[in-house]
């Protein structure tokens, strides 16, 4: 259960050494897009020696490896899989590539869905046992669809809703696409709120400036926590069926939601 997944370039020792100061719940060390073709081996060696030397309880560490169509996919896994980290982010994920990766590792997998076909077939990917989360890659998706990536994000409303529904059905985390303007924190907040309203559980981040906003939006609010406490307190005295609170009917799904919210609040040290 993480709110924020911060990408850091895998071939940059300065970033790696500071990965625990950014306040992100999870870090994704990137061996793919941020690493040039001729330095893939450098990055892999650096990450190998970094993770051999340093261990982290928090934040959770994921590695974005290179996709299965590249000559680097097998090397990334063969060299790095024995190290201590939580899981892989698999770019351009398909059902077949997730299955191939899951045959080579027991670690968890975040499927990065960023092609039109992967979104068409997303439920088949989300339902796979080793997929703990899906991450929407909207930039690659909109490029492939030849549509503009807008500030309003209207163009990804459908795919956000689709993934949110499918992830909820399979109890899988849905991580929203990153916001790409590193300085526009007001619009970042709007973007986070839109994603959260549609059902995203967390957001990926490509600049440390964004961590605080993302953590705040994806945390329970003070009002939500207070309301959940009231629901749970009243539920203790109403052992059977539904009851009324402030004119609203409270039943089992709402009680369960309140329990989940309190659990989240405890995890994020908001209680």
């Amino acid at each position: 259960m993480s709110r924020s997944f911060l990408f850091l370039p895998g071939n940059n020792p300065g970033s790696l050494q500071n990965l625990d100061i950014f306040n992100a719940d999870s870090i994704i060390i990137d061996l793919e897009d941020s690493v040039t073709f001729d330095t893939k081996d450098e990055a892999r060696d650096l990450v190998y020696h970094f993770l051999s030397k340093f261990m982290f309880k928090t934040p959770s560490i994921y590695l974005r490896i290179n996709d299965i169509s590249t000559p680097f996919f097998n090397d990334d896994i063969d060299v790095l899989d024995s190290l201590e980290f939580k899981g892989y982010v698999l770019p351009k994920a398909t059902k077949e590539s997730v299955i191939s990766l899951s045959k080579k590792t027991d670690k968890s997998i975040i499927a990065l869905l960023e092609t039109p076909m992967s979104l068409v077939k997303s439920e088949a990917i989300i339902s796979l046992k080793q997929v703990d989360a899906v991450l929407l890659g909207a930039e690659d998706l909109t490029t492939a669809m030849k549509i503009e990536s807008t500030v309003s994000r209207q163009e990804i409303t459908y795919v956000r809703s689709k993934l949110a529904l499918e992830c909820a059905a399979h109890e899988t985390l849905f991580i929203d696409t990153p916001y790409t303007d590193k300085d526009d924190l007001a619009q970042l907040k709007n973007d986070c709120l839109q994603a959260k309203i549609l059902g995203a559980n967390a957001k990926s981040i490509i600049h440390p400036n964004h961590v605080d906003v993302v953590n705040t939006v994806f945390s329970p609010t003070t009002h939500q926590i207070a309301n959940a406490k009231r629901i749970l307190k009243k539920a203790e005295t109403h052992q059977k069926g539904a009851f009324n609170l402030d004119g609203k009917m409270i039943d089992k799904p709402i009680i369960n939601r309140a329990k989940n919210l309190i659990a989240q609040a405890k995890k994020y040290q908001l209680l």
Partner: protein
Amino acid sequence: MNVSAGSYESNDCLITLEPAAELECIIHSVVKEQFGEQIELVLKQTLAGHNITHVKLVINDKGALDYTIKARLETAIRRMRDLDE
């Protein structure tokens, strides 16, 4: 022919290797006065782990930690061996 790995970025180092008649380590570092001996130790231990004794190694260090120096040297060694093949 020489090979390199790493960069001049802060916290990193650039290591260059070329075949030589004997082992020679040339260290340029912003922290050579404080850590020059430790840098040399990491370099020589890593080379010894690969049984490399005839090489000229130049390191331009911008404050890299031991794990970075070792990683960059491992990459350079592999690249040198790939060239030989």
